[in-house]
């Protein structure tokens, strides 16, 4: 028994051995269990297994997300907060740049020219312009307050998230109507 154990040990440590075959079974002492030693195949070593896993992981698809996730107040309003923030900020930046660039382009931007341009424009265009600017601005402001409340750990349970969410939407409508009427 000790003999077979030591033989097995040498086989186990001998990774480079490609063919280990016990031919002299008759040479082993009687009454000893014969182990049919098969070589440790290269594909089953830990390195080969992790290499196989690595190859499998390379081709795995990513499950769908935006396209299949249920439209919910939570992530829709969060997405809208980001979009309106970028839009209002970007528009403000472009307006500021425009103001700086105006003289070199020959456009006068002062109170008098702005007042006359506004007076000449049709009512519908003025209302549309005011609504387009007011809606994202008011939404982002009100939702920003909601975010500040969350940072103070207020209104964080789902019931309150939805209540405040609807309040922000309602407030946006009211605020936009007010600003557009000015």
């Amino acid at each position, binding site marked *: 028994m000790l003999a077979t154990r030591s033989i097995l040990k040498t086989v186990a440590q001998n990774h480079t051995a490609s063919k280990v075959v016990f031919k002299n079974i008759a040479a082993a002492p009687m009454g000893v269990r014969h182990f049919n030693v098969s070589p440790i195949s290269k594909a089953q070593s830990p390195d080969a297994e992790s290499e196989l896993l690595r190859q499998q*992981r390379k081709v795995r*698809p990513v*499950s769908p997300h*935006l396209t299949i*996730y*249920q439209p919910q107040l939570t*992530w829709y309003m*969060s997405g809208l907060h980001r979009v309106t923030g970028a839009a209002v900020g970007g528009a403000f930046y472009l307006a500021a740049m425009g103001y700086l660039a105006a003289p070199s382009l020959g456009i006068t931007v002062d109170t008098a020219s702005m007042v006359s341009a506004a007076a000449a424009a049709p009512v519908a265009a003025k209302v549309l312009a005011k609504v387009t600017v007011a809606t994202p601005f008011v939404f982002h402001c009100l939702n920003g307050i909601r975010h500040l409340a*969350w940072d103070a750990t207020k209104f964080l349970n789902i019931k309150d998230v939805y209540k405040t969410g609807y309040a922000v939407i309602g407030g946006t409508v009211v605020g936009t109507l007010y600003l557009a009427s000015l």
Partner: protein
Amino acid sequence: MSFTLSALKTASLSTRTRLMPAVGSPLIRSLQTSSSNNMATATDQPLKKEPKYKTIEIYRWNPDTPTEKPRLETYKLDLNTCGPMVLDALIKIKNEQDPTLTFRRSCREGICGSCAMNIEGGNTLACISKIDRDITKPLKIYPLPHMNIVKDLVPDLTHFYNQYKSIEPYLKQKQGPTDGKENLQSIEDRKKLDGLYECILCACCSTSCPSYWWNQEEYLGPAVLMQAYRWMIDSRDQFGVERRDKLQNKMSLYRCHTIMNCSKTCPKGLAPGTAIAEIKLMMAKE
């Protein structure tokens, strides 16, 4: 003989009352008991329900043919012969229609977290998610969103588990208990753990977070962060400051933008979003 005649008479009487319930013969007072009317008779047929077929659309992908794009496969299932939960439907489809359909499942009672998947657009456990009985609408089943898919509805959660391991989710102390035996905890301190320890790590919340979708490698996600909080506020743990220090970077915690999809979708009714906000407040005060 008289006995048999009376027996016949009673037999005919009972059949007459059953067969003519509304008509009371003037000669025979019909015994109209509600129980005798409701009792099944040999002539009654078992109530045959019309089959109620629900269309079920399931995301499928086979790693044995990796070049084939993932697809939506449609199955029809008779709801009258199936249990009420989505997991019952999946098992029935696997048993009777398509044995190649692959998904994880174990406890069938909402405690192990194996069957977490995206059902009708929201992440829940299939075993406690009731099938909508409206057969005009299909039931859509997808795997957890933005995860690498091993097969069909089975996501690769290795990275999720590694993230959990990284927050050291075990009691860490600098000094042993004061009496040398037990880590004593008051009832108020134990109450602080309610709503945190019940997490089954099903990954529904983390995979519902758009921020986790875009930053999975570095952002820990609501499930792991809630467990980090669970150890921070455990009165027996003495490494709170160090735990918070580990989150002092742009990505691990601060990719959370309070989207709150996590609390909305948790199948156990827990609030990871609240826990994360509490961590942020603690870290701001330190």
